[in-house]
């Protein structure tokens, strides 16, 4: 495969074109079904920064409309892993990817895949809330969409409200949509970033330690939001907080020095993990 080169002509991922025009599209699986369909199929995934290999042949399936937590010590490759899921890893000079990542059975590193369109389907929320400081709340929400679409005012308002409601922020900001996003609290800014990611109607939300800069109340709001978003989106969350992984996720993957040590239902991982290394890590006996 799949080294991360410049995309050629958009192929199947072009199907996601006006993503926001697909509201209410039927989902194949209800959130209550026992067996969820596979959203990402990852095989032999390897990643490098220059000559340094940081991921070593990861194999795992990520379920649709489920929350998957990625845990592991600093430097184990958690963030690199999720950045391989929307081809952000390749944005770093000298970064390379090997192996296979299939999204809805389509190779995201295949020829003709447009990484920009891919990133609209696979949105990302970062550790530190990063709203555009000079933009209003409304413009922040619509920023991603405006990169590729001319929006009529009424349509823009509709998308804006829907995204802010989905991010559980609407009631707090509906009377000050034209004020700068930077004026919000840290927790509100993070939900604004989630609203920005949701405005383009992605299938998947990648969250890279989304609560590490937030206080416990703001963290609880985000976790509550994750629980709600799980009904419509596939969520992959990187977290250093074991309790958070235990609270919010359905399955947990433990990475260590770029290898997948254990991947199992979260209830199992945090009560009776199979691998001694997982046990030592989550009980604080590491190193």
């Amino acid at each position, binding site marked *: 495969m799949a080294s991360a080169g410049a995309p050629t002509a958009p192929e199947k991922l072009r199907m996601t074109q006006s993503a926001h025009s697909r509201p209410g599209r039927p989902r194949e699986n209800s959130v209550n079904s026992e067996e969820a369909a596979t959203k990402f199929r990852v095989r032999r995934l390897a990643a490098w920064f220059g000559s340094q290999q940081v991921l070593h042949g990861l194999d795992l399936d990520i379920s649709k409309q489920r929350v998957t937590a990625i845990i592991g010590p600093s430097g184990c490759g958690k963030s690199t892993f999720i950045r391989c899921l929307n081809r952000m890893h390749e944005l770093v000079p000298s970064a390379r990817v090997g192996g296979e990542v299939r999204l809805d059975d389509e190779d995201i590193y295949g020829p003709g895949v447009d990484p920009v369109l891919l990133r609209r389907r696979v949105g990302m929320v970062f550790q530190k809330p990063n709203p555009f400081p000079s933009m209003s709340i409304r413009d922040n929400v619509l920023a991603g969409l405006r990169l590729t679409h001319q929006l009529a005012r009424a349509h823009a308002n509709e998308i804006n409200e829907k995204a802010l409601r989905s991010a559980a922020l609407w009631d707090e900001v509906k009377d000050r949509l034209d004020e700068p996003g930077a004026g919000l609290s840290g927790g509100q800014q993070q939900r604004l970033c989630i609203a920005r990611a949701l405005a383009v109607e992605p299938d998947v939300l990648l969250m890279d330690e989304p609560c590490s800069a937030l206080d416990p109340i703001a963290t609880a709001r985000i976790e509550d939001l994750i629980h709600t978003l799980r009904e419509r989106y596939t969520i992959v969350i990187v977290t250093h907080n074991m309790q958070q992984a*235990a609270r919010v996720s359905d399955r947990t993957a433990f990475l260590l020095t770029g290898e997948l040590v254990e991947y199992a239902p979260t209830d199992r991982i*945090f*009560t*009776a993990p199979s691998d001694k290394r*997982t046990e030592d890590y*989550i*009980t*604080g006996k590491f190193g």
Partner: protein
Amino acid sequence: MSPTPLKAHTDRQYDAQLDDLRARLLDMARRVEEMIANSVRALVNRDAALARRTIEDDHQVNRCEVEADELCLLILAKRQPMASDLRFLTLALKMVTDLERIGDLAVNICERAIDLSHVPEVKPWEEIPGMAAIVRAMVREAIDAFISRDVVKAQQVIDWDDEVDAQYRHVVLDLINVMVNDRSTVESGVMIQSVVKWLERMADHTTNIAEQVIFMVRGKDIRHLGKLPNQV
């Protein structure tokens, strides 16, 4: 399965708290084991004074229960234990309840010992000290299994419960025969029947502890194996 040595936590204060909890459980188990021995000794020797002293000892066991519970809650709140630590904590919470209950049953035996010391002896019940010896050994071994994380020892405790059940049935049948043949023995006979029932209940509580030890070590729940609906 050979016992697995415990690896130290990076945070040594956490290890110190877990060690403190282990020590408290050991102390509580030691007191309970002594109460079993003394309650049966008071019964057999018709020693009401020993029975009363043993009843007093139960206050210490109750204090141990409250303190161990408090420490468990503190560790749960401050450390949010995971995996084997979590299983250890849940075991500790259940174990103190079982130990406290065994202490209460020893008090019951003491109360019967006091009552029986005032009435003529029906006959020497040689099986009762033997039963009590097995129950004491079960408590001791269950705690040893807990400390050393030894599932073989824990399984042995579970197996001994069958022996206690067999002795219980034997003594009860014997009692029924005595009471049928001599109606004047009924009052004492019923009291003796209670005593052996309580010893049998002590063995059941100890079996609970041993089953929890196996869960703590292996992460596999063996309780009611094959008897629950939908159980694999």
